[in-house]
């Protein structure tokens, strides 16, 4: 019997419609855990660097994690992996919701799609019965609409459905995969799904997930439950509201948006409006939100309430979370929060990433204002009207064009990086907020921050919000506050981190950009990445772990939970080694596709005050700490230490590693 995992994957060849249930090697769990870890291994083994994103050989893997379907709170993420059409690297957007547990209960750990279907299909998995069904009647339907239509068609209200909307069908590079109240949004998974002509995947499962030592597992979960109750009752002091609790930022509960609206940049990541949160705006936004959010909701087996079921002025219901509440308003300079609720409804049905997409639209508006795009680009045709001149109408119009790939929208649909180069004529200058061709959060700040420098530059995620979290974003003002914070901090991997926090100041030698020092910054970032990688292998929500301060899950309780669930006897060092192996394999996969130091830097204008020497030192120190050469490639020594000698050989054969060293 297999524990925690089911021990079976579905292998689906879309070109022939062939479906196979394949037993997996139990050894894989010991070396790569599950979720992102085991998926990376499959991509490494089966997707050579010559494969382009829209080639049939680009694998699209939907994976559960090791703890999905167990009683572990918040283990509900699905990790979707593929070579991204935008970055050309191995992307791994994740979604919460209810889908991955259902897949486990149906008896599978992963679905591995290869090749392309000749016609539109959806996959229906009901325990042992798995079939590709015609989806021609669903073409053009919204991503949420499709989920309900399929449930109705199957006459199974309990089926969980992940679907793409029109954006995915049209291979927009920011197309998301939508499912229940969640979505796998970043880096174009929806485009790959659409390229393979998969409209949706519906799952219903009624089988058991087994625990090796169930009673012991529940005993460990008691501690986690007590801590969740404690933290919900005792928010962290002296940090901003959305960092005080656990779960993803409680944007559906909190109405105070002073911090986001005044610290994040509006438009195409341009302007900080430091007086936005006036009494009047605060009142309007609060009223709008309270009137629109109808219910606070969660993902599978999670006690938090990070999501909202929303309906603006009794319009259609949809579900939202987090920063998506603000992105369209801020990108378009519209001061009415109602606009965000209205346009996000359409964007959710279209299935687009609500981080990247508003920035693409704002980028187009800027190009128009700069005369690089002209009225000709915003003209109507027999199929649609010309672009309205008001801010709101313009955004709706641009969203429609992008998703439908009509006119200028066809160029914009490839994202800011490619659109800028395609439009030319100076448009490249306006692509000022991408890293590795991917739109970043609209943040433009003052002083270079060593930790964020490393996280923006180096992580495989290429999206800051899913790398950060364990370390406070700013120092505490007084020694009393610092002592108070470090006093009760059992999540720390090692006690010596406490001193780093105690010494951290706002100004002077012990402040940004000099402090934390490159060595300390490397250690802290490594810790954050390590925990994110554990979460992503277990498919536990980062909101209950790596993405928040003092979370319920951490490096000290994870090994116990994983051991009790799987029957492996894993300690902290063992767990760290496994996820380090995954990270290095992921890095090597990307190195093989061309990722090097040359690309590893934040946007040039991310901070006003830059320190090229310190920044180079940060990168070099971090690479050394990771056991990588100065080009950001794992050394043979490091790879062998992680039992990845075969990877070193491959990298050497391709001339990416020379003599195994620098």
């Amino acid at each position, binding site marked *: 019997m297999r524990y925690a995992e089911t021990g079976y994957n579905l292998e689906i060849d879309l070109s022939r419609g062939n479906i196979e249930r394949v037993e997996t090697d139990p050894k894989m769990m010991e070396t790569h855990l599950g979720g992102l870890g085991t998926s990376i291994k499959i991509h490494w083994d089966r997707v050579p660097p010559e494969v382009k994103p829209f080639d049939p050989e680009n694998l699209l893997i939907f994976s559960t994690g090791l703890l999905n379907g167990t009683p572990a709170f918040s283990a509900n993420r699905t990790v979707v992996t593929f070579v991204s059409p935008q970055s050309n690297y191995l992307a791994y957007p994740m979604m919460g919701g209810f889908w991955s547990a259902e897949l486990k209960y149906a008896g599978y750990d992963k679905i591995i799609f290869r090749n392309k279907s000749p016609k539109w299909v959806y996959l229906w998995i009901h325990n042992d019965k798995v079939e590709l069904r015609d989806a021609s009647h669903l073409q053009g339907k919204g991503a949420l609409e499709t989920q309900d239509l399929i449930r109705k068609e199957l006459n199974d209200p309990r089926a969980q459905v992940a679907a793409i909307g029109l954006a995915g069908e049209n291979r927009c590079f920011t197309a998301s995969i939508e499912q229940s109240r969640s979505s796998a949004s970043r880096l174009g998974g929806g485009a790959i799904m659409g390229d393979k002509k998969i409209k949706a995947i519906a799952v219903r499962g009624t*089988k058991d997930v087994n625990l090796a030592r169930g009673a012991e597992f529940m005993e460990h979960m008691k501690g986690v439950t007590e801590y969740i109750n404690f933290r919900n009752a005792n928010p962290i002091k002296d940090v901003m509201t959305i960092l005080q609790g656990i779960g993803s930022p409680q944007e559906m509960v909190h109405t105070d948006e002073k911090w986001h609206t005044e610290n994040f940049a509006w438009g195409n990541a341009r302007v900080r409006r430091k007086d936005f949160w006036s009494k009047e705006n605060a009142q309007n936004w609060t009223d709008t939100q309270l009137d629109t959010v109808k219910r606070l909701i969660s993902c599978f087996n999670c006690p938090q309430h990070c999501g909202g079921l929303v309906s603006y002025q009794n319009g259609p219901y949809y579900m939202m979370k987090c920063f998506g509440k603000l992105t369209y308003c801020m990108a378009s300079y519209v001061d009415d929060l109602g606009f965000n609720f209205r346009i996000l409804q359409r964007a959710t049905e279209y299935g687009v990433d609500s981080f990247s997409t508003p920035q693409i639209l704002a980028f187009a508006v800027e190009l128009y204002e700069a005369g690089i795009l002209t009225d000709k680009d915003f003209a109507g045709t027999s199929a649609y009207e010309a672009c309205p001149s008001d801010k709101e109408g313009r955004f709706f119009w641009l969203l429609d064009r992008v998703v439908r790939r009509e006119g200028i929208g066809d160029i914009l649909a490839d994202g800011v990086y490619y659109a800028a180069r395609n439009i030319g004529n100076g448009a490249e200058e306006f692509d000022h907020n991408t890293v590795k061709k991917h739109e970043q959060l609209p943040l433009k700040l003052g002083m270079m921050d060593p930790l964020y420098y490393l996280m923006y530059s180096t992580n495989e995620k290429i999206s800051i919000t899913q790398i950060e979290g364990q370390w406070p974003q700013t120092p505490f003002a007084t020694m009393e506050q610092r002592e108070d914070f470090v006093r009760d901090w059992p999540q720390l991997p090692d006690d010596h981190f406490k001193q780093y926090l105690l010494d951290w100041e706002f100004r002077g030698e012990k402040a940004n950009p000099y402090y934390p020092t490159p060595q300390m910054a490397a250690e802290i970032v490594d810790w954050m990445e390590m925990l994110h990688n554990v979460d992503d292998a277990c498919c536990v929500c980062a909101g209950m772990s790596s993405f928040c301060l003092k979370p319920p899950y951490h490096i000290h309780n994870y090994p116990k939970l994983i051991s009790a669930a799987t029957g492996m006897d894993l300690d902290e060092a063992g767990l760290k080694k496994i996820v380090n192996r995954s990270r290095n394999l992921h890095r090597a996969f990307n190195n093989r596709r061309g990722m090097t130091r040359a690309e590893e830097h934040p946007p040039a204008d991310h901070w006003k005050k830059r320190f090229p020497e310190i920044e180079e030192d940060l990168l070099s120190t971090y690479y050394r700490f990771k056991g990588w050469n100065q080009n950001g490639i794992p050394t043979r020594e490091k790879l062998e230490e992680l039992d990845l000698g075969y990877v070193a050989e491959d990298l050497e054969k391709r001339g990416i590693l020379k003599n195994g060293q620098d």
Partner: protein
Amino acid sequence: MARIKKKIKTIKIDADKCNGCRGCEIVCSAFHANPQYSSINPARSRVQVITNRLQNKWLPVFAGEYTPAECMGRDKYIIDGKEYDECDFCRAACPSRDLFKEPDSGLPLKCDMCESDPPQEKPKCVEICLSDVLIYEEREEEVEEEEKPSDAESGLKALTDKYGLEMIADTFARMAQKS
């Protein structure tokens, strides 16, 4: 017959607070697994969260009595403008649907309030529901003492329910003659 005190166990369901997480289903199936906590399968749970997210419907329902036959008619409720499907509020394991049946055997499931030895302080679903949707209450009521049927009587009653009194009587007579 004597009047006795009987403990009435209630789970009050504040459905407005339900965030739809289905943690109750998970812990129920784990607690009732054999050995305890060895497996999880919400389809075996004796509580099910009836959900239609886009219609804002979230309704935890507990498994009640098994019924051999479905109702003669069905009801639909409209509450706060939301139309609830037929049978949504019903607790029965019934031939009309697959709810509250063991997925392997089809045998009916029934909430037992997690009665066990040693006794639990409260049912597991209540304990795990951190959103305070499920609230456990106990009260005592005075009832007429019922005479507990013997095992033999219960067994015969079940057979009679299934095959009819006449067949059981015939069979009994035949068996009596043979012996």
